[in-house]
């Protein structure tokens, strides 16, 4: 296993050529499968986009894919951002803060840990591996109360740290980096660096880390998405709506929507199209990140695991 990324890309291209289905029937099967699958994944989202251009009444009465009007869209935008005098902006800011802070800590602790697990020896290595796997299988509901009590003990409940610190513990990230380092980094490269007089820290920073950039991107992306979408922990930790992240905020919006909470049919109630818009706003950061990092993602996943 000593391929560089560029070499792998070349190989990928050749592999693609050789594995393609040939002939008319093959291509039409591929086409059909792709169309059906794409429709399955995309139609609900397309509908969601269209929903933001309609009023609630139009949403119910008109056919699913009838497009509303630009005016209605801007009205919905206004309603969303006027809700509780701009709470949505605050929620997005909170989400970004929690997710990014946790992401940085995750990377700082996970990447060296994955490296150490894969390429060094120390006591408790095996047990650390097994525990990492077991903790990944532990139901979340079971962990929330103990984590809450811990945070309470150190007086952090209601503080941003009460969310950021638990977010930063990301065993899946350690597992991914572990697989990457144990399969994709040629050991003789590290040994050569050591012979050249690099210290262990230098070996990690100068040699291993640059080679690991795909998996760092991968862990960063997954951890960001997970933090961004996490609902339960912030719901338990943060009492105040000012400190909610977007996901918990969305549920506040949901409970202000009469369709889901009839008692909300009052002064500041939400409409379904506005909720649809909130949904799209809430997923935008993840989407943008995905678009920018897709190349890294595939590279990172490609690199993991399979040994030659």
């Amino acid at each position: 296993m000593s391929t560089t990324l560029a070499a792998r890309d070349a190989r990928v291209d050749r592999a693609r050529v050789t594995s393609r289905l040939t002939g008319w029937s093959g291509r039409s099967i591929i086409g059909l499968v792709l169309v059906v699958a794409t429709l399955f994944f995309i139609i609900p989202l397309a509908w969601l986009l269209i929903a933001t251009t309609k009023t609630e009444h139009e949403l119910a009465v008109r056919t699913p894919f009838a497009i509303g009007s630009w005016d209605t869209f801007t009205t919905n935008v206004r309603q969303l951002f006027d809700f509780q005098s701009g709470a949505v902006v605050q929620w997005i800011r909170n989400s970004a803060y929690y997710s990014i802070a946790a992401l940085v800590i995750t990377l700082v602790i996970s990447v060296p840990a994955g490296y150490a697990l894969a390429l060094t020896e120390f006591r408790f290595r095996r047990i650390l591996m097994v525990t990492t796997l077991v903790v990944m299988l532990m139901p979340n509901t079971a962990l929330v109360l103990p984590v809450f009590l811990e945070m309470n003990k150190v007086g952090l409940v209601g503080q941003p740290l009460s969310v950021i610190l638990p977010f930063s513990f990301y065993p899946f990230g350690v597992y991914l980096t572990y697989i990457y380092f144990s399969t994709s980094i040629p050991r003789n490269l590290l040994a050569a660096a050591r012979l050249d007089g690099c210290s262990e820290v230098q070996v990690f920073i100068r040699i291993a880390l640059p080679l690991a950039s795909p998996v760092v991107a991968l862990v960063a992306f997954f951890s960001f998405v997970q933090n961004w979408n996490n609902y339960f922990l912030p719901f338990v930790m943060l009492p105040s709506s000012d400190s909610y992240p977007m996901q918990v905020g969305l549920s506040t919006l949901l409970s202000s929507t009469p369709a889901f909470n009839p008692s909300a049919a009052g002064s500041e109630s939400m409409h379904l199209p506005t909720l649809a818009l909130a949904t799209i706003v809430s997923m935008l950061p993840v989407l943008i990140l995905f678009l920018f990092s897709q190349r890294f993602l595939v590279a990172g996943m490609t690199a993991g695991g399979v040994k030659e």
Partner: protein
Amino acid sequence: MNRIQPRRLVRQIGLLGVLSVTAVAVLSGCSSNGSDSSDGGRGFSEAKQDKNSTITVWVDATRVPAVKAFQKANPSIKVKTVTYDGSANGSNSFKTKMSLYDRAGKGWPDVVFSSQNNDASWATQGVAGKQPFAARLDKGLIPAGTLSGFAKGALNPCTVDGGVYCLRNDLAQTVLWYDNSLLKKFGYAVPKTWEEYQALGEKVAKEHPGYIVGSVGDTWTPEVFMWSSKCQANDVTDIRKVTVKTDSTECKRAASMLDTLVADKSLTKLSVFTPDFVKTYTGKVLLMPGPAWFAGAIFNNKESLNVPKGRLGVSAPLAWDGDSAVAGNVGGGTWFISSHSKNLANAAKFAEFVTTDDAYQVDLGPGYPAYAAAADKWVKKQESSGYYATDLSGLTAAAGLVWDGWGFPSFSQEAIWAKTITPLVSSGKSIEDNLGTWATAIKNQAKVNGYQVNE
């Protein structure tokens, strides 16, 4: 590479064990309840009071104007507002958060609004020797004169074992809503009894198919029809005791009526909040038994049925032949004061203001006020808007008619109905035949919630 020796692994596990026992000991160690507390003679032990401390109030988005009105009227009192979901729609966030604070031994807000009306059932009960969250209000915290000013039965959801533990924000008594113009056009009279209602429903099915006289698609169907028929499915007789008896005439007559009209399609199986309902029945709702808040939520709402001005009428709850008329109830929010509050005086002042003062209840409140004096003014204000085809005396009458044989246990009757009866109804099965299934489901749920079911 070198395989780890079993013995070493055991040693590692042992060490981890020691570490974790320490951890558990730290975590589970009781937090001291050391703060100075005393019995203030109000039926619970009070925290040390500080008259100048800020009070923290939790409200849902709809109740934010109430806090603003209070601040305007009392600029000297420091209030911190926290907006949360109001514990709405089964989120149970009020209960969830309080049980976490109970565990933590601190963090409680001073006043909480809940959109539900079954919170007193848990907020008055301490778990594992902890002090219950709700402060008792009728032993001096709230003046007796204020408490007696609430509509008859309005404080039932707040009353546990004779004590009052919360103030009601609004009432959600059930009435009969109707489209006055449609009734006139078809030449029908407003029914006075449930028997007339059923007969009219059957007639509508024949003469004007497609028009409806109500809906059974929502979770509050039992509260609209069974409660107002005095069906004893939810009779909370003591703090943790409930009587469930669904084989009575009272239950059967309502169930049989529902079965008939559902089969006739003059009662729709659709929830009134579904797009389908709006699409199918806009302009076709002849009658609709339902809570007071239906007016703003579905009729006078351009996103829903959007009934034009001057058409919507309201009549007092219907009676069954030979029985007195009673109303059901669907929701209506409540305000709780924390027994852990450091500023009970201001907390009480706040709760009293938001439930009784005209500045909120009459001028801003969206629902029918639970406080009788405010309700009268609120009704006048609504009538003067000219939206309704009739006066609102039906609403006022219903406010005092809510039947008290239907209790407020800690579990949700709506959820039980939704999961046991709604699927049966939608697959065309009879409610009357399944009253036993319903009772069993209620009893099961009551038992896991710690209720003793009276036989």
